[in-house]
C-alpha cells in the first residue's frame, strides 16, 4: 500500500493495485456515509467515493484543487454533507461555511456539524447571499453544487460579496437543471460565458472538464476572480 498526497489533504492510495481517493479522518473511528476507513502508519484515512462527490470526481479528472489546509471555504449546496465531510478533513486548520436551503437535508448536515468542529451550518437560500452576510466572513474559496437553473448567477453574486481578491471558485454545473432538452455542451458554454462577466464580476477560467463516467451531464470548473483595474 502506498499513499501519495496529491494536494493539501487529498490523498491517492494504492490499495492492492487499485487507486482510490481518500482524506485524513479528523474524527478517527467515525465513518460519515458508510465509506471505508483504514489505517496506514498510524493515520486513519476515509475513502472518498468520486461517484458520490463532484469534488472527488474533479480530483480524479486531474483538476488542480485550490483548497489549502487553512482555507476559509463557503460551500453552497451542502446537502447532507457527503462532500463537506471531506472538505472538513482537508481544512484541518480552516473553516467551512456550509449553506443548504432544504430543512430536511439540513437535519443530516447538523449531525455532521455536531461531530466536526470546523463546519458552520447555515440554513439559507444561496440566491440571497445578503441573508447570511451577518454570519459569513470573506472566503478564500467558494465551492458550489446547487443543481439550480441559475447556477452561474448564484456563483457570481456570492463571489462578488464573499470571495477574497484573487479567490477561487470551484463549480459543478449540472446541465439538466438548466435545460433538460438542449445539448449539455451548449449549456456549459453559455454558463461559462455568463461567469466570465455576465453578473458584474469576472472570472478567469483555469480549468474546465466534464465529469462523465462519475457524474453524467455535469461540468466541473475552477476559476479565479478578477479584481477591478487588472
Amino acid at each position, binding site marked *: 500500500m502506498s499513499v501519495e498526497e496529491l494536494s493539501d489533504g487529498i490523498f491517492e492510495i494504492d490499495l492492492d493495485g487499485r487507486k482510490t481517493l481518500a482524506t485524513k479522518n479528523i474524527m478517527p473511528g467515525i465513518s460519515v456515509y458508510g465509506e471505508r476507513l483504514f489505517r496506514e502508519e498510524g493515520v486513519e484515512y476515509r475513502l472518498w467515493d468520486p461517484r458520490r462527490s463532484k469534488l472527488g470526481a474533479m480530483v480524479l479528472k486531474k483538476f488542480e484543487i485550490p483548497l489549502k489546509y487553512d482555507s476559509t471555504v463557503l460551500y453552497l449546496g451542502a446537502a447532507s454533507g457527503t462532500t463537506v465531510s471531506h472538505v472538513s478533513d482537508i481544512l484541518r486548520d480552516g*473553516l467551512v461555511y456550509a449553506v443548504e*436551503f*432544504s*430543512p*430536511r437535508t*439540513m*437535519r443530516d448536515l*447538523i449531525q455532521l*456539524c*455536531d461531530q466536526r*468542529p*470546523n*463546519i*458552520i*451550518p*447555515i*440554513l*439559507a*437560500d444561496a440566491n440571497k447571499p*445578503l*441573508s*447570511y*452576510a*451577518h*454570519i*459569513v*466572513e*470573506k472566503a478564500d474559496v467558494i465551492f458550489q453544487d446547487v443543481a439550480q437553473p441559475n447556477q452561474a448567477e448564484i456563483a457570481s453574486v456570492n463571489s*462578488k*460579496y*464573499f470571495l477574497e481578491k484573487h479567490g477561487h471558485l470551484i463549480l459543478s454545473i449540472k446541465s439538466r437543471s438548466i435545460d433538460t432538452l438542449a445539448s449539455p455542451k451548449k449549456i456549459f458554454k453559455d454558463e461559462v460565458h455568463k461567469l466570465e462577466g455576465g453578473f458584474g464580476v469576472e472570472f478567469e477560467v483555469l480549468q474546465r472538464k466534464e465529469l462523465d463516467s462519475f457524474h453524467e451531464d455535469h461540468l466541473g470548473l475552477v476559476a479565479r476572480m478578477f479584481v477591478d483595474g487588472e
Partner: protein
Amino acid sequence: MVSEFTVWFGRLTLDEAGELIDCHPFEKNPDILAERLLELQEGGQKVPATAPDLRRLAFDCGFVDMDEDYDVLLRDVCIRAAKNRISSTDTDDVRIVHAVEALDDIDKNVNELSERLLEWYGLYFPELELTGEPLSRFVLAFGSRANVPDDHPLFEKASKSMGSELSFADEELLRSFASNLCSLYDTRRHIESYIVTGMGSLAPNLADVAGALLGARLISIAGSLQKLASFPSSTVQVIGANRALFKHLRSNTPPPKHGIIFNNIIIKNAPWWQRGKLARAFAAKISLASRTDFYSGKKDPSIKEKLELKLTAIRNANPSPPKKETKPGGKASGARGKGRKKKGGKR
C-alpha cells in the same frame, strides 16, 4: 458615508473603507445570539457593498480575542439557530397530517352515529325535521319531546307528534348518545381551527392559495409537504382521484381531470366548460405555493394575486360553452378550434 451593520456578534458602525468606528458587542449567550441570528436572516437589513472582515471586527470590538473562540462560538450559535428552525418546521407537517386524518375519522363516525340517532329518535318524534348537529343538540337539550318548553319554535310540533312515548331509561340513553355526538362536533371544530393555525406557520402560501383545509388535505394525501412540493402540477391536479386514476390505467377511460382540488368552491361553482382550465391554473399555483413553503418558508402574497388574475382571464376568455363541432356553419373562433383539435388528438 458611515453605515450601521448588525452582525451575529454585535452592532457595528463602519466607515466607507469598512473600518470600525463604533461597536456594541452582544452578550455571549449562545441561545440569545442564535435567536438574533435568525431574526437578522429574515430582516433584510442594508449591508456594506462587500463582506467586511467579520473576524477582525469581532476582535476590534472586544467580543472575542482568539480565533478559536470566534470559531467555537459561531459554530455553536449557528448549530442552535439551524436546529431551532428545523425543529419548528419539521414536526409540524406530521402533526397537520394527523389532524387532517383525525378529521376524516371523525366525519366517518359522525355520519354513522348521526344516521343512527336520526332513525332511533325518529321513533319518538318523527315530525322533527332536524338532522346532523342540530338534531344532536336538540336531543341532548330536551330528551323527551315533552320537555320542549312552550316558547320554543318546535313546541307545536312536539306537542302534536304522533311518535311513541319515550321511557325514562330510553331517554337517558339517547341523551348520552347525543352528548357524545355533540362532543365529536366540538372536537371537529377544534381540529379545524388547529389546522388553520398550523397551516399558517407550516405552509402559509399553500393555505393562502388553496385554503387551509384543502392545503392540509393535499399534504396529507401526498404524505408530507416535501413530497407535495416535489410533485409536478399535473400530479397535484389529480391528487385524491385514485379511483378514477386506476380506472383510467385499467380500462380506456379518459384520465381524471380533477382530484380533490376540484372540491374547491372556485372550481365547483364554475360552469363546466371552464373547470378543466381553472383546475389546471389552480394546480400550478398550488404547486408553486407548496414549493415556496417548503424551500423558503416565507409568505409571498403575489402567488395568490397572480392566481386571481389568471382565473379572471380564464373566465373572460371562456364566457360561453364551446359549440358542438358537428353543427353546420359553425363559426368557431381560432382559439376554440385549437382547443378542440388538441382534445381530439389525444384520444
